[in-house]
């Protein structure tokens, strides 16, 4: 069953001439983990906002086509109803923090309070999510007195605790070190394995290749490519459109031209794939 169904979506922000998204089609199944790649300005964030209902409900502007999430049409729903099904983790975690709470613990509880979740249910959910995102030691700190990486984990936790059917993340690991990045990808992968539908905008293509089920490459508001990570991320069209390409892909492509990578072998995106192709036995 498709949880996200986008048909022929064209969207323009108010007072702009060029649409940010053009004739976009996307269906995402329950429990699927879809990554969106593309250069800055390609429409990744706008697509995240659209699935999360901020487009058009918060940003206004003109939306054509159909956007359905969890069986509801965005044009026929309010943002208040929408957020019950969909959670958005912002690109800049600072923008997501409510400003109404003085500790991380209270910040995490803010969404649940607004939904009227009873205290005895709230407490275990908060503890579970803090453990999952490795922020238990931050519970009593001010959400504003944190490093970028810590803030990013709090922003993720504050959405996960809502247990949305659909989780949308806009570059959720941009301020994390490599271990933190791996942990966050693993948490998100586990969420998707347990049935949560995930859409994530991300530049770090090696991580996308290792964790996502499917990849959508956007360029200038249009779908450039869609398919498995291996297909999309090694496509020779990507660099021409400014989409990030893994260094492993680039080195293998250069090696092919010099006869050091077998023509028939698919290009690698991850270290393990590159190692396999370059190890002496197969060369």
């Amino acid at each position, binding site marked *: 069953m498709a949880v996200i169904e986008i048909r022929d979506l064209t969207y323009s922000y108010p007072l702009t001439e060029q649409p940010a998204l053009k004739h976009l089609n996307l269906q995402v199944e329950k429990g699927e983990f879809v990554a969106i790649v593309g250069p800055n300005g390609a429409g990744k964030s706008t697509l995240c906002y659209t699935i999360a209902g901020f487009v058009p409900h918060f940003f206004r502007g003109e939306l054509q086509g159909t956007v359905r999430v969890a069986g509801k049409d965005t044009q026929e729903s309010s943002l208040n109803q929408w957020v019950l099904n969909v959670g958005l983790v912002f*690109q800049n975690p600072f923008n997501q923090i409510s400003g109404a709470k003085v500790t991380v613990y209270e910040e995490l509880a803010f969404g649940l309070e607004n939904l009227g979740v009873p205290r005895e249910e709230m407490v275990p959910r908060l503890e579970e999510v803090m453990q999952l995102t490795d922020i238990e030691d931050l519970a009593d700190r001010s959400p504003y007195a944190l490093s970028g990486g810590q803030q990013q984990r709090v922003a993720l936790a504050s959405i996960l605790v809502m247990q949305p059917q659909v989780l949308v993340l806009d570059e959720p690991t941009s301020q994390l070190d490599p271990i933190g990045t791996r942990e966050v990808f693993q948490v998100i992968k586990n969420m998707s394995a347990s049935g949560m539908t995930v859409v994530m905008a991300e530049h770090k293509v090696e991580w996308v290749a290792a964790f996502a089920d499917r990849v959508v490459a956007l360029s200038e508001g249009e779908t450039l490519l869609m398919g498995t990570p291996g297909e999309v991320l090694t496509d020779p069209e990507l660099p021409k459109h400014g989409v990030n390409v893994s260094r492993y892909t680039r080195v293998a492509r250069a090696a092919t031209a010099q006869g050091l990578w077998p023509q028939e072998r698919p290009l690698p995106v991850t270290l393990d794939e590159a190692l396999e192709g*370059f190890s002496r036995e197969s060369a």
Partner: protein
Amino acid sequence: MRIEIQNLEFSYPSGVEALRGLSFTIMPGEKLAIVGQNGAGKTTLVKHFNGLLKPTNGWVLVGDWDTREHTVAKLASRVGYVYQNPDEQLFSRTVEQEVAVGPKNLGYAQERVQALVADALALTHLVDQRQTNPYDLSPTWRKMVAMASIIAMDTPVIIFDEPTTGQDANSVARIGEIVDVLNRQGKTVITITHDIDFAADHFERLIAMGQGIVLLDSPMLEGIAQEKILAATYVDPPQITRLGMRLGLPKIVKDTQAFLDTYRRTLSEDPPPNRA
């Protein structure tokens, strides 16, 4: 301009010991990348260079100035600091006004301000956006405005805190070019970054920090091969370096060309020395 750090310790009012005794010197015109896990103390360290933080113990000299004896406003003429989040430093109505704030505050003559602003806008590819409100730009370009506004202050030392965060391939290349140009002008360029590939591409010295101390301080090509030390502070070697090391290449490589040259040479060694 030389920066000398001696037995530097710093504790936040909360009691968190962020820096636990650092000593090293940054020579004029160096290209230094500082890496390390979240919370390692990287940002705390560089905030001592422009006096935003003052040592709990030890001292920092910027040129001949002890940062304990000079204000942030004064140190701003020697050390420029580009914040990780551009929104923390932008407030003017147009890009051009924003970029002119720094050099004006330093009291430069009007012609010099104009020349510096023009150069900074050209270097950051913002010439066509000079009349735009910074907040009408995408986060990518706001970051460029933040950089331009510090570059225009023409300080001998410039610090970029996580410059490549959330940037695409083209933008990372532009930022790398800015680093190279500033360095060719003789400036000391320092970056804090999680992007070890960016560090290896554009910087010559590597310092890895962990839990408030320096774990590693070496020329880039030697530093990136110290996989164990880097792992202790959650940093992986650059991607191509890792590939070369896993394949057992005889030399440390960090870019495609060096990798392919070295790889080809190992293939042609026939039979491999250990089987001869």
